[in-house]
């Protein structure tokens, strides 16, 4: 009789997934993964979600991972299955999302022969994964899967790919359990640098114009890190701003929250960054969307940077204090130090600083006027937020103007409730991502705030949504333009709208109907209120086609090549002329 640890490679992989806590796997079958699908068929614990495109499998796993803090899991076939997954993997790498991607491969003896559906998957995915493996020896298989999970979820999280040749999946193997072992020289020991933390605490307590700038690292460090960051903000009574990736780590309702910073951040957040004397960056990476022109970035400040990835420190901006480690651990130590420091002496008064900030706040940079019958996209998001505030709501977005409006006008009071493609800027991210979020949170409200162009990039996933009866709400801000492209063409290229208008859009209501789900067309402001109510109260999936002002621009904005203090509030602003250097930037 067969020992229950004797099995084939495919069964061992599935068992290892189970041991590592996988409950859901997003995938698409094909020739090179048939043994794995056979093993899944026999497995009772892991649920497979069949997507309609491999890119969507990865985005769905990202949505799952980002809304739960767990490792997402993907299974795709060799060749085109693997190459289709590449965009998703790059997206996960840029946004530090922990994923395991299993790819099928042709049998080992055919590798290198240009076999059917063969691709050099480990070669192609090397720069877009945290690590990858090609399994050539079945005896190493179990350990590789276990190690992959450790790598994906430790340090700065990221995607790990395991390429599994078909003969390996079919070879016999004795299953080995996960052993916590360190076979590596301990790198990046992440010992908390208490001496530096103590100096940093002094600098923060004595700051006259402090600003705290939090990013995705706070979210990745778990909900406790968000609580600690909020505690730090309250302790110092310092203003806090968050990056696109960090939204939710401090509640939008916190009185010290200045809104998002950066290219489409608020006036007060960017001016506070520019004029501060001490900047504390927690888990953000001085991305070019945030810093604007580097030689004019926050010229008067001492800078402190907390990041788990040592290579993020001094990469773009030279800082005065670098602290390498998990945001939660460092924030905890820092909060303790600041409490001690505050006992010794009173806080430096920062009321003058708040006076300045309130002046900037009074500019009301997010103001807009809803006049006439045409819906302003900002109004649509604002109303959506007001109507969902009291419900546990998860938002995913695609990429473009609607994404920025969602970041500006939707309020996030908790971490892990906001899933957007920040680093890579992947159009088509939101719909599949919402699949993963809804699978993880079946009873919550999941809304994909979308643009009509982005929606078209992965709309095949409607089929997935219908198959699993996922009550995802797709809220399309439809302006018939690739809005952000159009805006840049208006600002930087003399309104020469080259190829940014979509001629043949579907009737989204009929499209919904063809999938047997509800479609709503909203073309006037008077209908918006009822439509949102109807969308929320509908049990199943909904496509809401919100026809918005076609040529609305996303403001405020730091034009490319400009600095924080050179931001423009509307297209009539005098600073709209972008420099030649600026036009060359993305």
């Amino acid at each position, binding site marked *: 009789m067969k020992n229950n640890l004797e099995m084939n490679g495919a069964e061992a992989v599935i068992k290892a997934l189970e041991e590592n806590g996988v409950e859901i796997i997003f995938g698409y079958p094909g020739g090179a993964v048939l043994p794995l699908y056979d093993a899944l068929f026999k497995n009772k614990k892991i649920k497979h979600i069949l997507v309609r495109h491999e890119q969507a499998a990865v985005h769905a796993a990202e949505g799952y991972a980002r809304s739960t803090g767990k490792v997402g899991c993907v299974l795709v076939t060799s060749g085109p299955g693997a190459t289709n997954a590449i965009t998703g993997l790059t997206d996960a790498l840029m946004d530090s999302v922990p994923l395991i991607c299993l790819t099928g491969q042709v049998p080992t003896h055919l590798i290198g022969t240009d076999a059917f559906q063969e691709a050099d998957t*480990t*070669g192609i995915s*090397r*720069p877009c994964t*945290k*690590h*990858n493996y*090609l399994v050539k020896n079945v005896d190493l298989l179990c350990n590789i899967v276990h190690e992959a999970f450790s*790598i994906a979820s430790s340090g*700065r999280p990221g995607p790990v790919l395991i390429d599994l040749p078909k003969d390996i999946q079919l070879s016999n193997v004795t299953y080995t359990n996960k052993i916590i*072992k*360190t*076979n*590596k*020289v*301990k*790198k*990046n020991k992440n010992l908390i640098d208490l001496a530096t933390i103590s100096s940093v605490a002094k600098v923060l307590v004595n700051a006259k114009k402090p600003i705290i700038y939090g990013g995705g690292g706070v979210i990745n460090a778990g909900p406790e890190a968000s609580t600690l960051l909020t505690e730090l903000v309250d302790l110092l009574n310092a203003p806090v701003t968050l990056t696109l990736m960090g939204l939710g780590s401090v509640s939008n309702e916190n009185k010290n929250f200045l809104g998002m910073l950066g290219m489409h951040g608020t006036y007060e957040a960017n001016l506070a960054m520019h004029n501060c004397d001490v900047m504390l960056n927690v888990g953000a990476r001085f991305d*070019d969307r945030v*810093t*604007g*022109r*580097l*030689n004019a970035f926050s010229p008067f400040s001492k800078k402190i940077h907390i990041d788990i*990835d*040592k*290579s993020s*420190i*001094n*990469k*773009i*901006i*030279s800082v005065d204090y670098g602290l390498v480690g998990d945001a939660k651990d460092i924030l905890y130590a820092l909060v303790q130090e600041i409490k001690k420091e505050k006992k010794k002496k009173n806080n430096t008064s920062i009321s003058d600083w708040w006076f300045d900030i309130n002046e900037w706040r009074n500019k009301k940079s997010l103001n807009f006027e809803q006049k006439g019958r045409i819906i302003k996209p900002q109004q649509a998001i604002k109303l959506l937020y007001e109507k969902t505030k009291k419900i546990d709501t998860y938002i995913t977005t695609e990429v473009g103007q609607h994404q920025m409006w969602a970041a500006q006008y939707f309020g996030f009071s908790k971490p892990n409730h906001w899933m957007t493609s920040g680093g890579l800027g992947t159009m088509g991210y939101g719909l599949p991502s919402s699949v993963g979020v809804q699978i993880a949170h079946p009873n919550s409200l999941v809304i994909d705030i979308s643009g009509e162009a982005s929606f078209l990039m992965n709309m095949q996933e409607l089929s997935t949504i219908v198959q699993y009866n996922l009550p995802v709400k797709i809220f399309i801000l439809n302006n018939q333009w690739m809005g952000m492209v159009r805006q840049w063409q208006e600002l930087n290229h003399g309104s020469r709208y080259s190829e940014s208008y979509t001629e043949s859009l579907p009737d989204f209501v009929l499209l919904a109907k063809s999938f047997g789900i509800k479609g709503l067309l909203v073309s006037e402001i008077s209908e918006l209120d009822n439509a949102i109510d109807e969308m929320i109260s509908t049990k199943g999936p909904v496509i809401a086609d919100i026809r918005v002002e076609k040529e609305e621009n996303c403001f405020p904005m730091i034009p490319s*090549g400009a600095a924080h203090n050179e931001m423009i509030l509307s297209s009539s602003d005098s600073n709209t002329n972008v420099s030649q*250097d600026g036009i060359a*930037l*993305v």
Partner: protein
Amino acid sequence: MSVYQSNNLNEKESSRTLSLIVDNEPGTLARVIGLFSGRGYNIESLTVTEVDDRRHLSRISLVTRGTSMTIEQIKSHLLRLVPVHLVRDLTLEGPFIECELALIKLVAKGANRVEALRIADTFRAKTLDVTLSSFVFELTGRPHKIDAFIGLMQSLGDTEISRTGVSAISRGSETETKILEQIKVN
């Protein structure tokens, strides 16, 4: 460096010799090289061979150029790679030895042959192959010395050159044994 203007530290680039201990497994070298090409860093010289057959570890000696900020980035990025165990900056650490091996073929006639042998002798080059119209010399030493020798040979006739690139090690009694012992023998 970002797409925006550089930090303008006015610091000149300098040459650095790095010494890496990595797993000898398929793809490791591709990861190291891919990091340099993907992020736009330079590799001036690179040598790699297994140095520990029980643990399957290789040493990569690597010469690169950059400002100190760039070099710090290179080192941090190298350490992020899973099969990279150790990254040492020999230039920064203190005195070290770097050495290279070169094979130089010279095709020459008459008096130039005599001159070539005399120069080879001065440089302590070994003669590995002789025909009536050619020599193959073997020379080890610092890259500058090899450059000088090659320059002289080139003025004596047609040459063909093969160089290994720099291999480097720190001076003194300190070794990496303690650190490498943390890595399990497979």
